[in-house]
């Protein structure tokens, strides 16, 4: 029997239990739209962007110089330092543990080019990403229609030309993009390389006018960065070179008085010279934020180092024997052996007191038995345990892009530091100026003096063996001699041309420029095929390598063609 009270209680309970149904009806009708309106966290949506954010967009345009986007491999495989193009040239070998590691670079080395090569894709992508960021900043600044942005617009135009120039050196068929174009609709067969050069050059000349002589933020491009880039672009532009323009723009840098050569040849690898002396425009490396902003592009290239000095290393990017041999000098004059046959006849250069070499050799590569950036005495001697795959790639690990071990990180990325990588270096522009004078035939004497200025740096390095720290050269183990070219009757245009070309090789070795020099001189094919046949006695894997005229530029990446729905073709407009 149920009492009335219990029954009442039951009714109350039941009634209470039905309340949530009413509650739910109220909630569902009132809160529904709130719960469906979700905005992203931790990011600005497009409508939140203001004029002031153009400054941050500019920063991201500069960030393209790191060529380090989402993974790490795109920085190795498509490096902004272009070391992989030294591997394409007669200066360098891929290195690492085996030919199969970073196989895409091995294929560049063998000139076995396929359109699905990862390096080909990464170089394309890294530069186009950087261009997209640059154009996006440029658009924001132009849309703002504010005079304050004038200088920054010029910087962005500079960067646009910088990234395009890198593409133009490597690829033949490119889409032409600016801040107004819809990147998804532009074809790659509308303009030839030369036509793109001719669109960019006036923009860069205009930027030169708007840029300041110096920038308070030293990482940003100034007037002379634009001038230096103009000189390089005029020199590289396919077809007959306008040497007058090269002379004019390189001359602006030389005559500015703002730059000078380093005291010593190994100063390039010293942090204290970041943005000093020879540095016109450089990748600004920083150890901030868990070394996200260090030179990832060269990060595979740290010597194997016995596993303790730099923690470790991957030992990619080693010099060829051919490059090392170029540093042999005449024991009397201290000049390089410009005659190829004479140089080949002398055999391979090793560590020896029997013949002389240019001291820049030991500032450029590690050699077994020689000091490696030793901060005191000869504590760090480069030995066989620093070498990863002696049998395959030999011993010549590059020195220019890594600080001495005590100033470098000891974990991945190996040997990292805030050492900048210089894209536009004064010695390069000075030698380019000399080259222009030689090609114009107008002032061989000045050209002679300018080349000798560079050689004097090598001389200073030799003279300061005991005081220049860290120590890279050792006269007890290696005989050195370096001398200057006399400005005499022998200094003809032909001889001077040979001299300046050799000087570029010696001074700028392992800095990513040699291949592009070979291409602009029109001698890439002959030089490389001769080199392959010589070098394979030291590196048997080079057997079978050859390069043809059709292989001077990398193919349009297959993935880009596939994704373009017919807008990109493997062949576009010829020059």
């Amino acid at each position, binding site marked *: 029997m149920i009492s009335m009270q219990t029954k009442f209680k*039951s009714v109350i309970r*039941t009634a209470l*239990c*039905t309340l949530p*149904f009413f509650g*739910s009806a109220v909630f*569902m009708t009132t809160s*529904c739209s709130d*719960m*469906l309106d*979700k*905005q*992203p*966290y*931790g*990011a*600005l949506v*497009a409508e939140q*962007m203001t004029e002031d*954010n153009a400054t*941050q967009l500019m*920063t*991201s345009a*500069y*960030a393209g110089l790191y060529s*380090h986007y989402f993974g790490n491999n795109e920085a190795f495989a498509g490096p902004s330092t272009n070391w992989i193009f030294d591997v394409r040239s007669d200066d360098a070998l891929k290195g690492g*543990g*085996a*030919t*199969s590691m970073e*196989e895409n670079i091995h294929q560049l080395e*063998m000139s*076995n080019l396929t359109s*699905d090569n990862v390096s080909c894709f990464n170089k394309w992508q890294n530069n186009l990403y950087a*261009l*997209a*960021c640059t154009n996006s900043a440029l658009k924001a600044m132009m849309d703002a229609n504010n005079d304050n942005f004038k200088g920054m617009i010029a910087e962005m135009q500079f960067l646009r030309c910088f990234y395009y120039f890198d593409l133009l050196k490597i690829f033949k068929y490119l889409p032409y*993009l600016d801040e107004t174009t819809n990147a*998804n609709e532009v074809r790659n067969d509308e303009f030839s390389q030369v036509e793109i050069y001719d669109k960019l050059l006036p923009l860069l000349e205009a930027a030169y006018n708007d840029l300041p002589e110096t920038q308070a*933020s030293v*990482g940003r491009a100034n007037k002379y960065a634009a001038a230096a880039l103009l000189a390089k672009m005029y020199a590289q532009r396919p077809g007959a070179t306008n040497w007058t323009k090269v002379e004019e723009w390189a001359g602006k840098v030389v005559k500015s008085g703002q730059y000078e050569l380093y005291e010593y040849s190994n100063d390039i690898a010293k*942090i204290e010279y970041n943005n000093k002396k020879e540095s016109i425009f450089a990748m*600004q490396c*920083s150890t*901030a*934020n868990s070394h996200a*902003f260090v030179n990832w592009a060269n990060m595979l290239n740290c010597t194997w180092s016995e*596993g303790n000095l730099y*923690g470790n290393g*991957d030992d990619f990017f080693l010099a060829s024997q051919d490059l090392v041999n170029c540093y042999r000098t005449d024991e009397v004059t201290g000049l390089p052996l410009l005659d190829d046959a004479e140089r080949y006849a002398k055999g391979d250069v090793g560590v020896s007191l029997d013949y002389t070499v240019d001291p820049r050799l030991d500032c450029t590569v590690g050699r077994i038995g020689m000091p490696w950036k030793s901060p005191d005495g000869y504590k760090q001697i480069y*030995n066989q345990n620093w070498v990863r795959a002696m*049998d*395959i790639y030999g011993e010549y690990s590059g020195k220019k892009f890594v600080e001495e071990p005590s100033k470098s990180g000891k974990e991945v990325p190996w040997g990292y530091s*805030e050492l900048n990588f210089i894209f536009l270096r004064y010695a390069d522009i000075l030698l380019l100026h000399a080259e222009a004078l030689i090609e114009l035939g107008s002032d061989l004497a000045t050209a002679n003096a300018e080349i000798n200025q560079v050689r004097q740096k090598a001389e200073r390095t030799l003279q300061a063996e005991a005081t220049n720290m860290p120590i890279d050269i050792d006269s007890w183990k290696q005989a050195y001699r370096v001398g200057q070219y006399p400005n005499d009757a022998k200094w003809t245009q032909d001889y001077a041309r040979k001299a300046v070309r050799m000087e570029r090789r010696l001074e700028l070795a392992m800095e990513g420029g040699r291949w592009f020099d070979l291409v602009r001189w029109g001698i890439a094919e002959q030089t490389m095929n001769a080199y392959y046949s010589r070098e394979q006695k030291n590196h*048997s894997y080079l057997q079978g390598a050859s390069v043809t005229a059709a292989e001077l530029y990398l193919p349009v990446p297959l993935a880009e063609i*596939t*994704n*373009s*729905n017919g807008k*990109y073709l493997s062949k576009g407009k010829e020059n």
Partner: protein
Amino acid sequence: MLATCTLLYAQQEITGTVTDAMGPVIGATVMEKGTSNGTVTDFDGNFKLKVQPGKMLVFSYIGYQTVELPAQNGMQVTMKDDAQLLNEVVVTGYQVQRKADLTGAVGVMDLKKPKSEGSNNIVNSLQGRIPGVNVITDPAPGGGSSSIQIRGVSNFNGNNAPLYVIDGVATTENLNSINPADIETIQVLKDASSASIYGSRAANGVVIITTKSGKGGKLTVNVGYTASAQFVAKKIDMLNANQFGTLYYQAMANNNQSGFNSNYTYDSAGNAYLNQYVAGHEGEIGYELHDTNWQDKMYSTAWTHNLTASVSNSGEKGSMMVSGNYITQNGVAKYSKYKRYTIRLNSTYNISKYVTVGENFMVARWNNNIGGFGGDAGVAGNTLRQFAGMPVQQSDGSYSIGKLISGSDTSNPMEDLYNARENDSESWRIFGNGYIEVKPIKGLTLKTNFGYDHLQFDNDNLNRTTYANTIASVSRAYGKGDTWTWTNTANYLGTFGQHTVNGLMGIEAIGYDYSDFNALRKNYLNESYNYMVIGAGTGEQSNGGGKASWGLFSLFWKADYNYADRYLFSVTLRYDKTSRLGKNNNSGTFPAFSGAWRITEEKFWKKNAVLTDMKLRLAWGQNGNSAIGDYATYTTYSTSNIAGYDLDGTGTKYNEGLAVSLTGTEGLKWETTSQFNAGLDTRWLDGALGFSADFYIKSTKDMLTQPPVLSAAGPNALQWRNTGNMRNIGIEATLDYRSPSYGDFSWDGSFNIAHYKNKITKLNDEQTTIGGDIRLIEGQPMGVYYGYVCDGIFQNKEQVANHATQTGAEPGRLIFRDINGDGNITDADRCIIGDPNPDLSLSLNLDLKWKNFTLSTFFTGDFGFDVINSMKHLTDFFSYGNAFNNRGTSTLGAWTPTNTGASVPAVSVVDNNNESRFSTYYIEDGSYFKMKYIKIGYDVPASFCKKLCMNSINVFAQLENVFTITKYKGLDPELGASTYGARIDNGPYPRSRTFSMGFNVSL
């Protein structure tokens, strides 16, 4: 409802009560036989019906045997559970239905069949159980990455996991936190008509899980314990140290290089003999060498202990079940482990005749440390490739260092695992729901259900220094995700004579919030576990974290109509609104229609014992998918490492930059999957034999994908877009048989078979092919392999000369086919060389019973799919990876001018022929057939149990992964799905053979 009764002759109202063992049966149907005169019992099991006394009344209720009795006032009817029928009650979307009433394709997992006793993830036990439900089990401790795929893939955006509905609460999270012993039923809604009630989240099917509750009207205690030993099932044959030295010498010689190595002494024939020591660097002592089988060192027998206990009770006032589970599992790889604690409390309270309140609540915590497997530099890869002449440790106890001994940077995998031994990934899941169910009038049930799912992870990784090349660091990561689900439903079940209607309507809101943060700090004075907390670090530090959220609001309706159990119709409509799509397209409607005809219920069908039941089903429905980024419609800019730059040249700082972090697409709409299903269910021989078959066409359109974009569009330009279409056509069949008893012996068995064919009918407007080695190609199945065809090995110079120009070709090297016939081997010579989708899946279960013994076996297999055996790079080629990496014994039979029949090319340290290119050399048929389990169980006789005051005692022994029949040369072709569903063997956690013993006791 009695108004429909128009019988004229004398009737009287009789009353009665329907009960079962537990009390009154509510809602039982009472019909006057052969008429449409009938009623339903009320909440006390009482009924009133105007009927002539003595007329036969038919009492029926879902899950009970139908009773026929003459009408009599005050009659007491007792209904009995029908074990057979009970089995066939299935939980479908927001409802319980008789299996006989189903019109869609619903698979029921028979939980009485043997499970993977050595595994704690129920998903591992689902493999092969239901046709069309493909499970790939993860052999690592915890099995957390096991995955389920229902009726093939429905899209290529990687979202092919089904929706799980646990006690009415939908979730997409892994099931590995659920204690398998807590699960009462598992149903799989395979087709769109059954799943469309879950609308936008159900395109990949729905798995419905119901957990146990107290029942049986008495207190029951269950205790179970299982101990399992795992053994590595198979190893790859690798070279020993002397064999390696000799072959390395040959490989170097083949490339005109000197292969002498200081680890070896050589005889005049070039045979290498491992030295006892290798010299160290100047002034340092040497290092010991001896032959090491790294796989034997890394993998050893591992034990799992699994203890479960539960207490349950039920009665008039309600029911409860409380359970606990503790499992600790060591992996076969050293230091890998998994540990889980789960508790559960399920209860119901009958507040009054009209109201029931209940809840299901679970807390689980699990910890694991698995180590990094997969890829060349993963633990398995390093185990294979580490130099065989290097001991694990030197005699002073220090770990050997490859770099000093063999000049290779392959890390010592034992040292890696040892250093990571205290790493810990801890997860918690709190999952539960509370509900109130009100039955205000007959047949109507109102229910409000609130579910909450809290998941969090807390990872602690200690990176200790090894050989001076790392800086010690501690990294921590913490994140949590919370989902709340509020569901309100009204369900009306009414019988009007021969007509039964079942109507459902509901309203549901789901909200999700996620946040995480992580931190890293370097440099620790001491590297002991106790010291290495993040705050004790003195060096560089970094941190990160973010948030995300989404919401979903839905309305749904369903109506079922059943005429005389003969004709069944069902209509479903779901309306969903999501926060993930743009404001203008954020709603979608997903309809479904289905019908079934039970031919055997027709009057013209003569009842017979041969074909006792036959049902034809036909269904069509739609589902959606919006499992895309939470903010796919927004274009956003953010600061990040890709945007920052040190403009000021400080060397130690940087300026923040802004770059596009997400490119939004306006006007995104749902991806829609339509599915047509035709099915046949039959039972023969008085129900002993059953055969069911389903045919389906599953088409996805407006698929949400992120098509590749041009680099020119800039970083993060990928956009979610409605693009492609895809189609699966498949067929599934099940045959089951339960034998009569032959004395003490009986047997039963079931056989499943499934086949589907996948085809990409459209990719997007711009592309017809996407991907590199693994591709999406219009007109092809998803994830086909695209590469070169390898035609064996060049035997002589003549053959090389006659072949198309192939850089690096020479005798002993692989031949690649000139597909386009242009006389040059280029990337244009690639073609489709494999397909990861199986042509056929089948499974077989056999249970033999003799007296109190049961012997169960279970076989499963997939046929006609291709595996990318990526491990062949490492085992077959001296040119792959580091020079001094060990290789497989396959290289012992490598090509030489005198061993021309070889399948492995000549040993070589360089790869001028580019043999690492993706070719058929790496593709193998993955077809396999496995004896998954064999289990013997024994039920201790009841009389003996009684003496021990117990209800039942069951003891068992089980062997899992007994054998595999396959032509596949790698370890195991059963591999998780990679990009676009590809099956890539890149050195996953090795699968073990497991022997388990245990008991279950009930008292």
